């Protein structure tokens, strides 16, 4: 089987290694440029099931801010990112929001929850 050469930039950590990968089909047969073994996992993931963490915001009613930041509990499939954003855009929470609150359970059937990443206390009448 013919070998294919491809380049990747690993995003697992801030170092951002530039990877030179030799592939046989979708199997990594050789890799250069990586500083640790996570590079191999990264490329394997990019080839078979690329995923990304998604961070965005949801609307909150009655809170000190009109939005609460949220994130995917674990990386979600890259092709589903904009579907997920569309779903999140429709959500409106009611203050108070607690860090770790599940905003959407099993988003898009991925088995991944969307969590709040901070507290949004109730806006007091006085302020």
């Amino acid at each position, binding site marked *: 089987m013919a070998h294919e050469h491809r380049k990747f930039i690993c995003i697992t950590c801030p170092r951002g290694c530039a990877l030179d990968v030799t592939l046989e089909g979708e199997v990594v047969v050789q890799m250069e440029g990586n500083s640790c073994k996570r590079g191999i996992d990264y490329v394997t993931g990019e080839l078979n099931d690329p995923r990304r963490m998604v961070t965005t*915001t*949801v*609307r909150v009613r009655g809170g000190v801010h*009109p*939005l609460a930041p949220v994130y995917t509990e674990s990386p979600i499939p890259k092709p589903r990112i904009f579907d997920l954003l*569309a779903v999140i*855009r429709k959500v409106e929470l009611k203050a108070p929001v607690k860090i770790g609150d599940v905003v959407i359970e099993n988003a898009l059937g991925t088995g991944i929850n969307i969590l709040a990443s901070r507290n949004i206390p109730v806006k007091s009448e006085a302020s």
Partner: protein
Amino acid sequence: MADKTYDVIIIGAGVVGSMVARFLSRYKLDILLIEKDSDIGMGASSANTAIVHAGYDPKPGTLKAEMNVLGNQMFDQLAGELNFSFERRGDYVVAIGPEEFTKLEGLRQQGLENGVPGMVIINGADVRRREPNINPEVSGALWATTGGICDPFGVVVAAAENAVVNGVTLMTDTAFQDFIVEGRRIVGIKTNRGDFNSRWVVNSAGLYCDEVMHKAGVRPEFKITPRKGEYYVFDKAEITINNVLFPVPSATSKGILVTTTVHGNTIIGPNALEIDDKEDRSITREGLDEIWQGALNLVPSLSLRYSIAEFAGLRPGGNAPCANLDVKYNKDYIIEIPKEVDGLVNLGGIESPGLTSSPAIAVRVVELLEGAGEKLEEKPDWNPIRRARPRFRDMLPTEQKLLVENDASYGRIICRCENVTEGEIVAEIHAPIPARTYDAIKRRTWLGTGRCQGGFDTPRVVEILARELGVSPLEISKKGKGSEFLVRPTKDKEAE
């Protein structure tokens, strides 16, 4: 449409229009002041060097020279009555090298001819002592003790506000379109917001004064050619110049200055570039390089690293010959009641030193009206005093403490670099001339003019403006319609 007839309509609320309104507000007149922009002082008055010129520079015999010297003399009383920042700290025309020194005496003679008091030529050592940062090659300077610096926006706001408090009606976002004429008499004006009747119209339209007078058939040959001047502003914590330093002037320009401001910042500029577009206040690489080189000649130790702002202003330069035909000069001011029509007071070509001249021009307008048979009767209750609102930044800690105790909103700092408080912003929003845009607040409080240039305060000011005006933050603008800061909520259908 309008049934009401004003006694005087003033077109343009720059420093000249505002000053005319203020001096006319003394009399029993029904006055309307219109401004095409969202706020007063947004045209030629929006950007200048903030200097109250002594008057040695204009050509003797011109109206410019006369107004400059008379206006300068009025500033102490005016600042006292209107409570704007003004410091008569003198200015210096600095000669670098022996050849320039020989030109100082000529300049002094010209000043004497114009009636400028208190001019002294001092030697290089004296200049170095007074301004340690000066180019060590300095050979001497003409020291004009009557020169001064002021808050140029403060002057406009104070004058217009005093006029409004004394009964003048101000309409912003109101643009002159044409005169309404009966026979040879002007009886009113058309604007984008309707027609207004008036017995007199004052043309103080600044950069647009030529277009206004042409609509009345006056001086068809007169043309305003905007002359752009660019500036750098420096961080006051890093660079301190104590004085107003002019170079020896060239035939065409007063040259590039290095000067301090009443806010403590050093500024350099302006260059002088003739352009066509009356709204083109863009800054250019070439222009900035030019003023930088010019300024280095006076103060070689300046560093661009500490520049915190650049801006450009437009001088409304005209081509009117001097009324005294013996004086060969064709950039003079126009202050007249033209013969072609009745009911018009025509002001034109009021470029630098327009800020200095503005109170003298206003007095001249009063005299012209009287000369035209207008019976001006003083209002018994005219109040010449306009009180300044508190400025937290300028206070001692003990005074700040008292201010905050009295009104807690003065305890909340909104602009971190210039220490402008929420109380000051709210006071300007609800002042006799309400500040309704970010730039209007900036001009009045000096907020957002520091090293972070509004990065910190902008979201907070948008929020305060929206709250105080009772509108959505989406409606809050930088300088009027079309310059809104925000386009939609983050979470919005449009995002789909």
